Each structure stands twice: as C-alpha cells, then as structure tokens.
C-alpha cells in the first residue's frame, strides 16, 4: 500500500507513538478477525434453526402423537396417524391430483420455456422489452392467478367455454371434470412460471460457447439439429436445476387450486384437492388434527425427495442420450479455451461427472 500512498517522512513519528498504545486494540483486532466471519453468518443459521430445521424435525415428533389444534399434545400413538392418513380415500385422491397437476404443468412448462428461450436468444431488437413481457405474469400473485383463471375457466359463463361454443365445440366442465380441472390449474402454474424459467434457460444459453455452434454449422447441422445437439446438452445442469425446483414447488401447490372455486376444498368431489390443501384441511379445517396433518407433511416430504431423485436421474439420462458425445467432440474441436466464459466453465464439472 505504501506504493500507492507514499507518506511524507514526518508522518513516521506519530504513527510509532500510536503503535505503542495498540496492545489492547491489536488483541481486539485479532479477536475481530477470528470471530467476525462466524458472527456474520450466524443470523442465517440461528433463524434457519428456528424456522427451518426445528419445525421439520418437530413435525416428525408431532406426527407420532395425538395432537389437536385446540387441545395440544396428546399421547404417543406411534404410526397410527400415518395409517389413518393412508386409510383416507381423500388422501390417495389428493396424491393423484397433485401428481396429475404437477405432470401437466411441469412437462409442458419446461418444454415451452426451452423453446421460448431459444426464440429470445436471437439477436432481437428491444431485447429487454420482450424479456420483461415474458416475466410479467411472475408478479401476479398466485392467489390472483387462481381467481382470474377460475373465472376464465368458469363452466357456465367463462370466456374459454364461450370461445369453445363460438367455434362450434362443446363447452368443457373445467370445474366439474377431474382431468379438465387439472388442465386448468396446470395452465395457471404455467402462466406464472414459464417466463421465469425461460429467463433461466436464456441465461444459460447465452453462456454456451459460440464456437460449438460454428463447429456444428461446419458439420452441416441445421438450426433444429443445433438446438438438440448443442444447446440442450450444454443446458443440462440448468435443465436439471429447473426440474428439481419445479418438483419441490409443484408438489406443494396450494394457492392456485385453493382459489379455483369459492369453497377452497377442491370442488364437490375433491377433484382438484392437492396434498397441501388436504394437509391444511386436516390441520385447520374440520378435523383440527395436527398429528395427522404432520403425518401428511412428512409423507409429502418423502414423496418430494423420491420424485426429485427420480427426476434428477431421468433428466440426466434424457439430456445425456441427446448425443452428448457430439457436443464433447465439438468442444474438443472448438478453438481451445480462448473466449470461454466463466459461466460455461461452471458447467464443465457436471459434464465431466456424467462420464463416470
């Protein structure tokens, strides 16, 4: 530092004088260096312990007890709550609904987001405008989305059915049929999240090294071929990331289906009641049975872990089978490491790990 700020020699004396008095301050300084790093990260860990880790573990404790919203903790009942939950036909139906809505939303969403990102990845005029337009639905509250689409998909006087009758088709029972209601709810989820995921894919696409495309063009690959043989394999870590987040969020879906009608119970025959809605109904609805609600929470947690794991493995395979070797070959042929962005480098460890 003395190079940058050369001190006049006269400044030497007072500095030495203060240095002699530094004993205490120096010790404080060392203590500061040692403790501060932990101090700075402690808020996260303390709060996570209170609102993250503790509740998750305590859920297990509650789930093996008789426990009521009003009465509080009752006696230990072992796995009875779990058995009771499984004995409820509504629970099994809720699981079916959740999976159906999840599949109907996440699959088209990832595909649409990928396609849309490819479109946005062109050298557009007014880039930011289009990107903002795509993200706009993300700021609409899920509750509002539930209400808006609940109205759009109304059985008797909704816009969608009115348009269907206009073109000579039969109106669909968006609220009365099971599958159509799932499609309507999946549409809401897709409305809100497709743009968000598009931007994530777009960012990853812009990090794909340009020389890969050049090499592909030299090899005679068309635009579609480039997309499937270069873009998709290069995006693999991002695709996996998006699918995992979609799984965690999608299986917990509550807001949109709850607001799809004014009862909030998934329709007359629980046609679109999800697991999270069922958990709420058991804990805070008529039963007020916290033990069972906790058991549902844990079961949902296990389901999410299993599905996320399966998705992870499947998406790894899908993205790998799209001729990753072609991409690897192109990478080897490309003009070396020059011009590669750090972001592209970040994807490399995963690319390497797939070989093992």
């Amino acid at each position, binding site marked *: 530092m003395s190079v940058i700020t050369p001190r006049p020699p006269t400044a030497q004396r007072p500095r030495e004088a203060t240095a002699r008095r530094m004993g205490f301050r120096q010790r404080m300084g060392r203590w500061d260096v040692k403790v501060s790093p*932990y101090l700075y990260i402690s808020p996260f860990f303390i*709060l*996570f312990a209170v609102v*993250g880790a503790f509740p998750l573990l305590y859920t297990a404790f509650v789930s093996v007890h008789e426990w009521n919203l009003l009465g509080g903790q009752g006696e230990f009942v072992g796995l009875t709550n779990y058995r009771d939950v499984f004995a409820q036909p509504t629970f099994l139906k809720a699981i079916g609904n959740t999976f159906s809505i999840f599949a109907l939303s996440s699959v088209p969403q990832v595909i649409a987001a990928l396609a849309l990102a490819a479109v946005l990845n062109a050298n557009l005029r007014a880039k930011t405008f289009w990107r903002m337009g795509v993200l706009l639905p993300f700021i609409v509250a*899920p*509750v*509002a989305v539930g209400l808006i689409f609940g109205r759009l998909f109304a059985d008797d006087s909704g816009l969608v059915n009115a348009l269907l009758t206009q073109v000579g088709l039969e109106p669909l029972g968006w609220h009365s049929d099971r599958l159509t209601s799932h499609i309507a709810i999946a549409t809401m989820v897709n409305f809100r999240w497709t743009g968000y995921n598009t931007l*994530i894919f777009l960012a990853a696409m812009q990090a794909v090294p340009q020389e890969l495309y050049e090499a592909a063009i030299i090899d005679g690959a068309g635009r579609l071929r480039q997309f499937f043989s270069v873009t998709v394999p290069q995006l693999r870590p991002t695709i996996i990331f998006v699918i*995992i987040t979609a799984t965690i969020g999608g299986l917990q879906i509550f807001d949109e289906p709850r607001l799809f009608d004014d009862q909030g119970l998934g329709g007359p025959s629980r046609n679109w009641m999800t697991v*999270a809605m069922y958990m709420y109904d058991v804990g805070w609805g008529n039963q007020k049975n916290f033990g069972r609600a906790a058991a549902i929470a844990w079961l949902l947690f296990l389901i999410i872990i299993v599905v996320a794991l399966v998705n992870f493995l499947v998406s790894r395979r899908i993205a790998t089978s799209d001729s990753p070797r072609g991409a690897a070959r192109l990478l080897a042929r490309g003009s070396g490491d020059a011009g590669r962005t750090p972001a592209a480098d970040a994807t490399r460890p995963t690319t390497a790990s797939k070989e093992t």
Partner: protein
Amino acid sequence: MSSIPVIAQSAGPGAARWAARRRGRATGGANRRPGWVTYAILAVVLLIAVYPLYYTLQLASSDAVSIARNPIPSLVPEGNLFANIAEVLGGRVPFGKAFVNSMIISVSAAVSVVAFSTLAGFSFAKLRYRGRGPLLVFVIATMAVPTQLGIVPMFILFTELGWANNLIGVIVPAMVSAFGVFWMTQYLDQALPYELIEAARVDGASMIRTFWHVALPAARPAAAMLGLFTFVQHWVAFFWPFIILTSNNPTLPMAVQLLQANYFTDYSLVMAGVLVTTFPLLILFVVAGRQLVSGIMAGAVKG
C-alpha cells in the same frame, strides 16, 4: 419519374437486409437479426402474458349482471372500475390494513434478507476461516428443504410465543433466505477484489467497518436485485400468512381470498380486489422490471 426512387428505396434496405442475413449465416447466426416470424411468436406470447391482466381490468370495470350476460367481455373496459374499487376498499374486507400489512412484511423481509445475506455473503466469499466450505454447502442444501412442510410445528411454536395473528409471525420466517446468502456469496466473490479489503484493513478498519465501507457499496447492484426479488416473493405469498394471521388482520393475497368468500357472486368486485393487489407490483415492475429480469438471468447462470 416517381417510380425510380421507389425502386431504389425498396431495393436499398431489402438488399442490405439480405446481405446481412447472408453474412449472419456465414458467421453462425450470432449477429443475425431474426425475421418477422420470431417477433410474431413473441407478440403472441406477450399477448398471452398480458391478456389475463387485461381480462381482470375488464371484469373489474363491469358489474355482476353484465358478466353473467356476456361471457365474452367487450374489448373496451366498462365504466364501473372506480366505483368497484371504492366499494371494495370501503367494504367488509379490510383492504387498507391488508395493504399496510403487506407493505410492512415485504419491506422488512427485503431489508432483512439483503442485510443478512450481504453480511453472510461477505463472510463466505472473502473471509478465511475453519468450516467455511461445509457451512456454505449446508446453506445451499437447505434450499432443497421445502419449508412449507414445517408449518404444523411452526404454528404450534409461534402460538406459544404469542406470535399468532401478529405480523412478527410472518416476518421472522422471512428474514433470511438460503438463496440470498448463496446469491450474495457468488456476487461478492467476483465483484469485490481482495485488494480493497486489505487496503481497508491496513488503514486500521475493523471487520464491520470494512464490511460497511467496502463490501456493502460493492454489493449494491446484487443487493438491489435480491431486495426486489424478496419484495415480490412476500407480496404474493399466501400460504403461511393465511395460516398464522386471521381475517381481520390480513395481507393482500388473504384479502383477495376473503373477497372471493364474501362476494363470489359478484366477480366485478372480486376482480377489483385482484387489481388493487396487483397494481403496486405492476408499478414496481414497470420501474424496476429491467433489474428483476437481469437479476433472474444473472442468478441463473450461476445457479
């Protein structure tokens, strides 16, 4: 006579475009301007993104009778918008209180998440100490834990603490975010040179002074995006506030849900409520949407 310039005009830009397209093809399409098909696709997507909001405006400016009579709303909004909004704001659902509550929650969450995340990010990115790596991995791992699943015991705990039906009960779980810590760590790792920190230390600044005068200014762009993101996230959050708060002390999404329960027959009023809830974020989006977009994009590359 007039035909000559017309030909020249139409040939000029056309030829230029054609040449540019050829050049683009030769360079792998990186600088190629896309054709009208691309813009048409994007325009349709934009329409899909905007229409539900416009539909909300149409219904909110209408009344129950005309909604029931015309399932396909007129393209131009009707005249009842302000009357409906006034009726909703003056109605049984405490919208004013909900607005204040949502504001308090979202602002405190944003401020707190930014402050704690920057602090932790500074520590993880730039300070050396035992256990740093594993602790950071732990933070990232917690992102995979669905917090919604802990609501039963969290409700029990918060009721014991007297936080039920209290904004504290909503704010405390929102005060930190693993994503925020990760995001700030990533950003500061790149944006804050060690030289600056060392310079401050040599000048005799304490750790916290170094953080305040060196790290915090460097973190400002990322902090703005994180704050924006957190604000939006808590403005639209429903599930946990719905459980811990009651209907006379709601947040805006809860207020909208209450409208649906109260006025489900008159959708013009319900939609007026939706509009009231969405409008503030819409303004924020117009003002700061650019930042939000670049924030999501930047976060994505590293995530």
